């Protein structure tokens, strides 16, 4: 059951970085005690704030540079603003952010439709790759999905006996 062992001496480069000093392990802290001086380093220039950027309440300010991708919007944005009232140590921060992500996905569909774009789910889900390389499984999953949907629709639209 066990596979043959590899002879290390036949592995190219074996041991070239071996270092008996590497205990308890690299990378050892390159200590300069700079952290004892607190938040006093010479900061890079501050990026102008052109869009709404939420920041952790565990820091006093925005970082000198920051990303400007996808500022908070709509209902998901309101939830995100609420989440940032709580620290990174709190479920009050992370769970609302997860909720906001799900709400944001729905907002994305609505936004597409509002701009006259009907999302091509087959393309977005990458089903072409499944069709080319995993066709049997894809067909089986689509068939099961169609069957479950048909049963659910039939059940929900059935005529009651007392109708």
């Amino acid at each position, binding site marked *: 059951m066990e596979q043959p062992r590899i002879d290390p001496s036949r592995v190219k480069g*074996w041991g070239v970085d071996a270092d008996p000093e590497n205990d308890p392990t690299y990378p050892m802290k390159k200590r300069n005690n700079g952290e004892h001086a607190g938040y006093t380093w010479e900061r*890079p220039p501050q990026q102008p704030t052109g869009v709404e950027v*939420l*920041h952790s309440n*565990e820091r006093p300010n925005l970082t000198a*540079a920051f*990303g400007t991708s*996808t500022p908070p919007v709509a209902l998901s944005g309101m939830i995100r603003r609420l989440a940032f009232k709580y620290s990174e140590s709190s479920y009050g921060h992370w769970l609302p952010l997860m909720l906001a992500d799900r709400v944001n996905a729905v907002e994305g569909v609505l936004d597409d439709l509002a701009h006259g774009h009907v999302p091509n789910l087959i393309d*977005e889900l990458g089903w072409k790759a499944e069709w080319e*390389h995993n066709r049997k499984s894809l067909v089986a999953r689509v068939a099961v999905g169609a069957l479950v949907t048909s049963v659910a629709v039939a059940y929900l639209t059935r005529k009651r006996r007392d109708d």
Partner: protein
Amino acid sequence: MLAMNYRGPLRVRIDEKPMPEILHPEDAIVRVTRSCICGSDLHLYNGSVPDTRVGMTFGHEFTGVVEQVGPEVRKLKAGDHVLVPFNIACGKCVFCQQELYGNCHESNSQATAVGGIFGYSHTAGGYNGGQAEYVRVPYADVGPMVIPEGMDPDDAVLLTDVVPTGYQAAEMGGIQKGDTVVVFGAGPVGIMAARCAWLFGAGRVIVIDWVEYRLEFARKYAPCEAYDFRSLGDPVVFLKHTTDSLGADVVIDAVGAEAAGSAMQTLLGRKLLMQGGSATALHWAINSVKKGGIVSIVGVYGPIDTLVPIGNVVNKGLTLRANQASVKRLLPRLVEHVRKGHLDPKALITHRIPLEHVSEAYRLFSAKLDGCIKPVLLPPSARN
């Protein structure tokens, strides 16, 4: 320009987006020449990283040609072909000064627990990533490295994350000559960690996963013993048995949040998202390492609580080492390893896919189809 556009869990597409602009005096704009999909991108793709907003462009492993630089950029100039570490680092804060470039304090406003990362949700700074034709690169004098003359661009793009992360996983393991090293995960990073374990003098390297084609790849590439955990019964018992019932000296978790192997972890961590991921690999790592041993973690987990047997860490006197790779710190050594032929990163690349087919590329990689180990996206300008 063309850019990947996240639309919600499992949904991505290619769209026209505005060109990035210089927003900070130390910015550069880079025309992308290669951009990989990383295993950790799949956490975003699956919707398991909080604050992943619809409309964002992913991608933190890329190379490109500098098109424009901000007024404070001194070292780079237009036309330079650069590899860009996945960490965004200012170079000035106390953590960068300590070479902890993955822990910069001036690149991520949204969270203090992680530095900025290209295209990796707002929890990692809200930057658009490199799965696009162009990308904004902050602190351009700090992270990017001009690709050394003669280096294959395919090698260069893997030096932005996969190689340094795999190497640091082995480095943090404090491997001594003759040590038995177990690596959980046969994705690109796990395979690279197994390969690098030999460089530190490992006496035996064992990789554990469940995807057979990846195990086969690892056996040849690392090289190593490689086992499908489904064939082992209890993988911890197997690893104890094969190490004189003591356990491995060093165990590396190169899986992270998407681990298979435990129904409870899968339910809590991947389906209900009530943990920072499924911690099966880390659980096995803690339990299969020797007393007094070292567990090195490079697998990515979400920021909320995650169930692991922490009592065993105490009782076994383990050392846990973990971090995002400090790419800039490691690059000089890794370039040397590539030059000398100790490492062959580009051999990991199995698929070269046009950027326009990004949704298929994500599905291919995520579902582990067609023997995919590492997919690289090529923008139109890089294909001409």
